[in-house]
């Protein structure tokens, strides 16, 4: 539970900040000038800070909407992402956020209105193009929903833009916000998934795979389009059986019409990020694997990537059509 909130002076009276402070009524509130005073500073230790992260309430001033990295999107012509929050309550060992920031504190940008204005402007500029907006790039889209209420606002907003897709990427089973309302056909709830025993070791503090699969099936049953994201693919002895079983479990008893898309992607890190993460967790077996470095990217290497990708593709094609399956290459 969050015990301390650091709020920028200028957002203290913002209605979202007030709501968050009210919801975390046991937390002490401290005023700060700018979130950068305490976030991502040199000499911070992500691993230790992760033991008790604080919540920082801040205003974002620019870059509300950014083009998604090449290879991140599905079949839309243009893909964008936005991050109303930095960092995540989960502690997944492969997560790039560990190498991205030196700080594990959560930053919540409370000026949601500016995000929606920027998204609206982007839509206006791209009227003749199919668009997908991704939420949950620098955080989990739903894990903090009870505190932030951001997804609820985003759903209200995207209801008015039925030709534009919103993807909420998550590992959270907190889906009340979605289930209490009618499904929105252009909002995809995309679950990050990996075989249960791998997730048990790597997805620290995240709901188990069984619970995630149940949550996504419930959403599909209630008419919500769901996405399946096997990303990153984790290599280990017997990975074929593990992924095969996982895929079978998911596709058993699911409303297949509501499976919007399925994507899979390899485990990859920019070299410097990998160096930073491995120095945080030098004893973790995920990082003792003899990875390859090519073009500044650390990965399992082309052979393993290709083998895993082909296997996933063929397993998925047993249950769904080719056009719904995408390979993510970020």
């Amino acid at each position, binding site marked *: 539970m969050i*015990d*301390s909130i*650091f709020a920028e002076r200028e957002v203290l009276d913002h209605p979202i900040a007030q709501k968050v402070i009210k919801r975390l009524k046991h937390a*002490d509130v*401290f005023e*700060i*000038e700018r979130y950068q*005073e*305490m976030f991502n*500073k040199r*000499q*911070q*230790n992500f*691993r*230790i*800070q992760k*033991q*008790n992260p*604080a919540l920082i309430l801040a205003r974002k001033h620019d870059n509300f909407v950014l083009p998604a990295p090449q290879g991140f999107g599905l079949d839309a012509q243009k893909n964008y992402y936005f991050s109303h929050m930095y960092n995540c309550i989960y502690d997944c060992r492969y997560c790039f956020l560990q190498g991205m920031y030196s700080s594990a504190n959560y930053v919540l940008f409370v000026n949601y209105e500016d995000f929606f204005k920027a998204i609206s402007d982007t839509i206006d500029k791209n009227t003749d193009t199919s668009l997908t907006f991704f939420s949950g790039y620098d955080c989990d889209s739903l894990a903090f929903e009870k505190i932030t209420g951001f997804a609820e606002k985003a759903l209200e907003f995207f209801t008015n833009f039925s030709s534009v897709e919103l993807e909420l990427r998550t590992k959270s089973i907190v889906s009340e916000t979605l289930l209490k309302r009618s499904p929105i056909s252009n909002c995809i709830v995309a679950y990050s998934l990996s075989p249960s025993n*791998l997730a048990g*070791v*790597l997805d620290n503090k995240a709901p188990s795979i069984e619970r995630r699969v149940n949550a996504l099936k419930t959403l599909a049953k209630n008419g919500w389009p769901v996405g399946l994201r096997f990303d990153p693919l*984790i*290599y*280990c*002895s017997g990975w074929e059986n593990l992924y095969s079983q996982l895929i079978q479990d998911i596709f058993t008893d699911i409303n297949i019409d509501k499976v919007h898309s399925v994507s899979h992607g390899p485990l990859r890190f920019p070299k410097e990020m990998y160096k930073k993460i*491995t120095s*945080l967790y*030098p*004893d*973790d*077996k*995920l*990082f*003792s*694997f*003899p990875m390859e470095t090519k073009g500044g990217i650390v990965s399992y290497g082309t052979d393993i990537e290709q083998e895993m990708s082909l296997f996933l593709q063929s397993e998925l094609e047993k249950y769904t059509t080719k056009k719904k399956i995408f390979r993510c290459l970020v």
Partner: protein
Amino acid sequence: MIELPDIRDIELKICWVIALAPEANPIIDLFDLRLFSNELDFPVYVNQENGHALVISGIGKTKAAAATTYLKTLLNVKKYVGWINLGIAGFHLEPVGRLFQVIKVHDIGSKRSYFPGLRLSKIVQHQTLYTVSQPETAYSDSVLFDMEASGFCEIAPMFSCNELVFVLKIVSDTPESPIGSISKKTITQLIHQNIEKLQKIIHTIEKLVSDEKKRLKIPEEVFQYFDKYHFTKSNRNKFIQTYKKWKSAFPNRKLENTLATGNSASKLISSLESELVSAIKEWKL
């Protein structure tokens, strides 16, 4: 003064930076610290057995920063060591004697803020502190006031990391209990009455330090190879990194067996890499 041990032999866990002797004495007693050196007006106390060291800085942020640097240099303090600035502070509210962990330090002079330490929320209450250049008697804000913390916070994280730097303050004066009434004896008593809570805090910090030491430590068995073979700087780093991966993958294997046939730095590295590669098919997480 104790006979100077070789500084390489001192395995420190916690370094204390404390402004005044009456504040330091209870800690010196608690950890059975002995005078190690007394140069430059910065008396340093050490106990090699339990890994605690302490420097008395004198009053003011500049002296706090200088004493922190002095202690680091004198004892060659390692990156994983925890740093604590303990002392008394003014506060707008009674009761005198309350212990706080300061999680925001604001320097009134420079207008800079610092956010030291992992928050030990389950043990101690948190508070903001202003570091001022003269004793504060108006208690104009609902924060703690001291004269050292910002100097300490400016420097100590460079020697360790921000999350292992702690500022602990005990309320010594308030509008109802003015600063003029504090004696040396009272100061020592205030520290004494918080010893139990301080011990809990120290226990938690020592655990963090131990984890951090484990993370950063390069095992002894690696060093023998640096003596035996010529390593370039880059090979040396690569050997350490590969060794760490290898050790994590095969915790029970012995380096001397794996490296028995190697006769150069690059061959040693490739022996470790080969063992990792040969284990891919059976890789377990």
